[in-house]
């Protein structure tokens, strides 16, 4: 099925409860080819042009269509708007994949290493979920953690992102030069109006993690009224703080968060080092 509008798509999903929506198919076809998924029928979202762009709301919010491709988000006009999301989109796989892979698909797949996810978490974005006759608004973090998951027959239509007009950074460590999934990633955004720093760490846990205490602490170290300077020692300490908050001692073992271990595992030490470097560099770039 190839609906040409949102309404048609939502109706198609209502009429065929077993149907699966498909956007760029970069995740979906992988699952089909590996035999993990055998959809009874597909609802293609590619013709719904309204979902492929974005609009503004109330002056301070961008409403992004779920059908925005990574390649589109990487273009300068979008990058000027939400730089961290553009950074994430730029690294989300090889060009062939980014030309068709979409924001909505990245969120719906909710892979631990999904590159847009920590950015959306740091931006405290929310998504609109549409069903025949009803829509609801859910924070991205609730959707990802399963607190409020996507329900059968529901379509992810819009992603609401606050426009902060301040530096934002997304950094990703992959261990190689060619395109690859993140071993760890950090999204960091400044919110000068609220004098806040928001940060999320991707790929180290099933969902992006927010080091809230570290965020609050570092916000207090920044000279918000002046040139937004910060003591380099504070930048480094922030990195360590974020790493310790997001990587448990027992990282790599089952039930890592509950495990009582004697000091951090070797895997935890390695990952913390990476996260600390990423967080430090991200803050440094945002305040440069």
């Amino acid at each position, binding site marked *: 099925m190839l609906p040409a509008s949102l309404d048609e798509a939502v109706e198609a999903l209502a009429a065929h409860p077993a149907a699966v929506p498909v956007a760029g198919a970069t995740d979906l076809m992988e699952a089909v080819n590996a035999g993990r998924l055998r959809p009874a029928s597909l609802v293609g979202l590619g013709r719904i042009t309204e979902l492929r762009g974005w609009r503004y709301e109330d002056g301070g919010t961008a409403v992004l269509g779920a059908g925005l491709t990574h390649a589109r988000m990487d273009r300068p006009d979008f990058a000027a708007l939400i730089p961290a999301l553009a950074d994430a989109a730029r690294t989300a796989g090889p060009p062939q994949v980014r030309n068709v892979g979409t924001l909505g698909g990245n969120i719906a797949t909710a892979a631990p290493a999904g590159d847009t996810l920590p950015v959306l978490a740091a931006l405290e974005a929310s998504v609109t979920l549409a069903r025949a006759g009803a829509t609801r608004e859910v924070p991205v973090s609730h959707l990802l953690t399963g607190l409020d998951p996507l329900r059968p027959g529901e379509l992810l239509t819009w992603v609401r992102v606050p426009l902060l007009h301040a530096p934002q950074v997304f950094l990703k460590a992959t261990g*190689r*030069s060619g395109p690859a999934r993140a071993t760890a990633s950090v999204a960091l955004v400044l919110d000068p109006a609220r004098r806040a720093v928001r940060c999320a760490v991707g790929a180290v846990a099933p969902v992006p993690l927010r080091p809230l205490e570290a965020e609050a602490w570092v916000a207090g170290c920044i000279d918000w009224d002046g040139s937004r300077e910060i003591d380099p020692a504070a930048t480094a300490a922030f990195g360590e703080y974020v790493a310790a908050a997001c990587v448990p001692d027992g990282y790599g073992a089952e039930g890592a968060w509950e495990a009582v271990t004697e000091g951090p595992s070797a895997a935890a030490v390695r990952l913390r080092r990476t996260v600390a470097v990423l967080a430090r560099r991200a803050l440094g770039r945002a305040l440069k």
Partner: protein
Amino acid sequence: MTSPTDIGAAPQQDGDAGGTTEPFGLGSSPLRSDALPKALGIYPYAADLWAEGLLWGAVLRSPHPHARILGIDTSAALALPGVHAVVTATDLPAGPDGSPDGAPSGPIVADRPVLAAGVVRHHGEPVAAVAADHPDTARLAVGLIVVEYEPLEAVTDPEQAFTAPPLHPDGNLFRHLPLRTGDPDAAGEIIVEGLYQVGRQDPAPLGAEAGLAVPRPDGGVELHLSSTDPHGDRDRTATCLGLEPDRVRLVVTGVPGATSDREDLSFQVTLALLALRTGRPVKMTLTREESFHTHTSRHPALLRYRHHADADGTLVKVEAQILLDGGAYADVSAEALAAATAFSVGPYNCPNVFVDAWAVRTNNPPAGRMRGEGALQACFAYESQLDQLAARIGVDPVEVRRRNVMATGDPLPTGQAVTCPAPVAALLDAVAAEPLPALPVDDPDAEWLLPGGPGGAGDPAAVRRGIGYALGMVHMLGAEGEDEVATATVRVSGDHATVICAAVDAGQGFATLARQIVQSVLGVSEVYIAPADSDQAVAGPAARGRHTWVSGGAVERAALMVRHQLLQPIAADFGMSVELLQIAEGKITSYDGVLGMPVAEALEGKELWATAQCRPHPTEPLDEAGQGDAFVSIAFCAMRAVVDVDIELGAVRVVEVTVAQEVGRALNPRQIEDRIEAGVAQGVGLALLEDLRTEGGVLANPSLTGYRLPTALDTPEIRVAALLEERDVVAPFGAKAVSAVPAVTAPAAVAAAVRAATGLPVGRLPIRPEDAVTG
């Protein structure tokens, strides 16, 4: 790619077009004949084969690395509509030794069952197979086969293999090779020691295994697949099926490029068995995951070294222990071990060498042939040792190597004198003299050049540049007494020639080379290369760089015989000797210019045929002290790698690799550079990315997401500083094989460069980010 001479500038056309602009003969660089079809997507691969009424095959594989099979129940699978046959080991004819579950097989030692009988010895080992009328049905049926396993303890640490209970009736030791030469009590003022580890590199062919088997009316079977050893595969298949070899025909189709053996035997025997059982053509294409399970990988290795040297760095003694993990079956482990042992010191002179090397059986995936098997692992270790030695005595790594390099005529530790050209010092000087690439600049536009790649987290302040050198060597052709022979037929009729030779062009460019040889000898531009199949005479496997030498040699001889037949009558007519006639551009001319006759006219409508063989001089096995003339010839190369390392994240970018290689004679300069680029890319992959990991014997990353092949961004700028041409007098055309030695040397060079950048020991390949983080 930059090169000293822009040899690619000549206009290239389709290989079969006999136009005047087409590069012609030896020493020119015509485009590979399969290059365009492959680039355009019209090259037929084995997976594209089709036959009327074909069935689809699928294989059931062991989920355990080691288990006893208590029972197999195929009834549910057989009952599934659309299923035509389900086969297990009991469906195979008894082996020649009477073993009820079929003859075991393998390239050197026959120890590997086609389908597991009684016991499975590695994760993914084939247990049963199905033929059905739809691929999904076949896979569904595979899922319905019930196998009762009793899991056994898996031996996955090669060091445990010595003491573990035997995993196979043949025991756990594939080979122990001691090498002793010189004075065991010799000692040097300086001693450096190291422990080196090499992971499991997989050939990861982009074209996964695929093939078609068609039953023949005479009770035999015809196999269409991308074999790289059609006769060997035919013979082994026939043995396993209890057929005469002439009842099995192997047609080589759609080889996607191979850097190792293509098609494991189990795959093709199972395919043939299903076709014989059902009386219908059967096609099978493996999934990516199965592909990782089915072909052999590179031997993981553990190498312990101690180098003794004088205060000035001159080597006094090398002691080493080398352990190769051969996995569950023998395959070519014994041969890989010979290379690791014989080249354990590298292209250096050392009077006293004491090595113990073992290849053992474990419950890990079987290891086998892969570009420079054995030689590569040793190269990483001896080159790392020389870097340590240089650091210890405080001299430049290039200088330490200069003080020790071997030259033509010097002996290997096996006692064999290196009689082929060995201009190792000149190679080293050539790479060392090349200008260095520019340093990274702190500029947003150049951010993508930082370690970690475009969009990565690179920070110029944390980047350190490192430069490393390595020298590598590897033998060509079969070693230790293996009979090497190839046969080729050349035919001339009208204005064109045809080559019939069963040598498979596995991407090494043999077909292009054969065309060039015939062009050079017979002066005709149109040369057709017949597709390879096992009804032709034996040419042997495409491995160890042997086709350029052996099959190329056979083609040349056959072409020369045809040339003689062609020129003899003319020479007689004109009362001059054949040597005074020459053929060029399709025309026979005499030395004095009196005669000028087109080849087609000289033929008078006749066809001329000749068949010839090439058999290099014999070699001998290494004895109980590792001594003997085991190799026909040896290839050498020198490399310099330049890397940038983000020392906080451990991200490594190989900026440039500079290569100098001894090629004997450049028969097709561009193809040589292609092979060098391919070898370097594969070596860089092993150095930084490629590792087929196992957890308790179970493959952890059998996918192209998990198994990281180098992409264009991971592959450095590759510069060829020199192709030294010193003819190897015993080789046809004087040419050496070129593909393996760059792959052997590149990992050591990259490791040396990372060592230089970080000051860390770097004793493990691939280098993980955590191995390159300082502080």
